[in-house]
């Protein structure tokens, strides 16, 4: 009893410290995180749906899921590149990173539209 209450107290403390640490994150990174959560959630919904109705238009399923996954991956890449604390990309201007992100997204959605039919 005493042990489990101590565990839940620890978890709460951990959660609090995570939240306070995250509150310090710049707004633009928060927006990217929100976008990633949206993409992953859409992908999960589709995976559940294919489990229910079967994989008949398999190409449509793949393109739907891969568009979400691709979006999430590209958004994470953008997040790594525009993060100020990331010393590896300190020479790369954030405008350049965003331009790369847009270009990759255009290519991704072109492919998705082709494969969706």
């Amino acid at each position: 009893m005493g042990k489990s209450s101590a565990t839940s107290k620890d978890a709460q403390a951990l959660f609090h410290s995570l939240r306070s640490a995250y509150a310090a994150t710049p707004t633009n990174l928060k927006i990217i995180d929100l976008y990633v959560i949206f993409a992953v959630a859409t992908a999960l919904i589709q995976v559940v749906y294919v489990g229910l109705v079967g994989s008949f238009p398999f190409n449509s399923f793949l393109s739907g899921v891969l568009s979400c996954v691709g979006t999430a991956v590209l958004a994470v890449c953008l997040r790594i590149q525009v993060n100020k604390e990331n010393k590896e990309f300190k020479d790369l201007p954030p405008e350049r990173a965003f331009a790369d992100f847009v270009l990759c997204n255009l290519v991704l959605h072109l492919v998705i539209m082709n494969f969706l039919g």
Partner: protein
Amino acid sequence: MANLSIYIVTLLLFPILIASFSPENPTDRRILVLLDDLSLRSSHSIFFNSLQSRGFHLDFKLADDPTLSLQRYGQYSYDALILFSPSAERFGGSLDLAAILDFADSGHDVIVAADENASDLIRNIAAECGVDFDEDSSAVVIDHISYAVSETEGDHTLIASDDFIKSDVILGSAKIEAPVLFKGIGHSLNPANSLVLKVLSGSSSAYSANPKLKLSNPPALTGSYISLVSIVQARNNARILISGSLDLFSDKLFRSSVQKAGSSTRYGKSGNEQFVTELSKWVFHERGHLKAVNVKHNKVGQSEEPAMYRINDELEYSVEIYEWSGTSWEPYVANDVQLQFYMMSPYVLKTMSTDLKGLYHVSIKVPDVYGVFQFKIEYQRLGYTSLSLSKQIPVRPFRHNEYERFITTAFPYYGASFSTMAGFFIFSIVYLYNK
């Protein structure tokens, strides 16, 4: 002058030349008859006359005639060959075993009759056709149960046999009532040869031995294993008849009355004439010859023949099959003609329906497999010439724009794709203007 005589001879020969065997008229016309001696012409006259009255042109020659030749300038002068020369050790002229086999290999018909004096040459011809005569040259077929009753007790070598092959196309539709009289040597069929068939087989009590000697060893050929008369239809539809008895064709046995031992019925006339006549009709392609014409295929609902089909197409295939009746092509009616849609193995095998006027028709669905297919009909039935048709046809997959679109089940995937696109648009605006 010489030119003129050649011209006249050609003109005179012309009707004979054009009447010979052709796909349009499969019955043989010109027959070479080889005899041991010319007295056979009168002793077997009923058989020869029946052939002549059916329109055959018989050319009688002695087996050792030095001018014998089956072909002239690479063209065969005869459509069929009757070998009534069992004792000929070698033929005259250019005729030999190889020439006779070439003759059959090029689609011509042969009747071979042997007797107790059968020479090695005749035995070799038979052996090439899958028929092995008893190796003991003095042996004849003896049957102490189903022999033909005669005034004298005899040695039971005149056999009354009624073990016919059950085939209307080979022996005619009329039943042969009287037994067939047979006096000669027996043979066995080579089990490796699938084309040779027994037409008249010995009864279960028959055996092959020398009737003058006491039987010391068990005979090599016994029972219904013995074949008395056999036929071969080669893969090129050449037909060969092999009989162990020359007397089978003789006037004497045609006309003689017959009573089978153990039976009280006495027939005024043996079954030989009917048996031999019907069999010769079959051998000389007056019966059982099929042809297939007008092979057509098209998509259901269209009439022209496409160069290619798509997977899952519905198609119709039709063919006309006729049987030669000796004078005209009659519709062939059967319920077992099957079409194969074939690529390495049959993907579709379907029985065709007939309209009883010779037209066979079937509609099939192209399988869900693409590649180069064939329409195939392999029709092999006892007594009929084999039909083997094949026609190549490619089958292609769906074109890119032939797939189904906007499937209801896939709407969530479409929605997800478009919503990520919209999400990307909104994200870009929010991200750029959030300062």
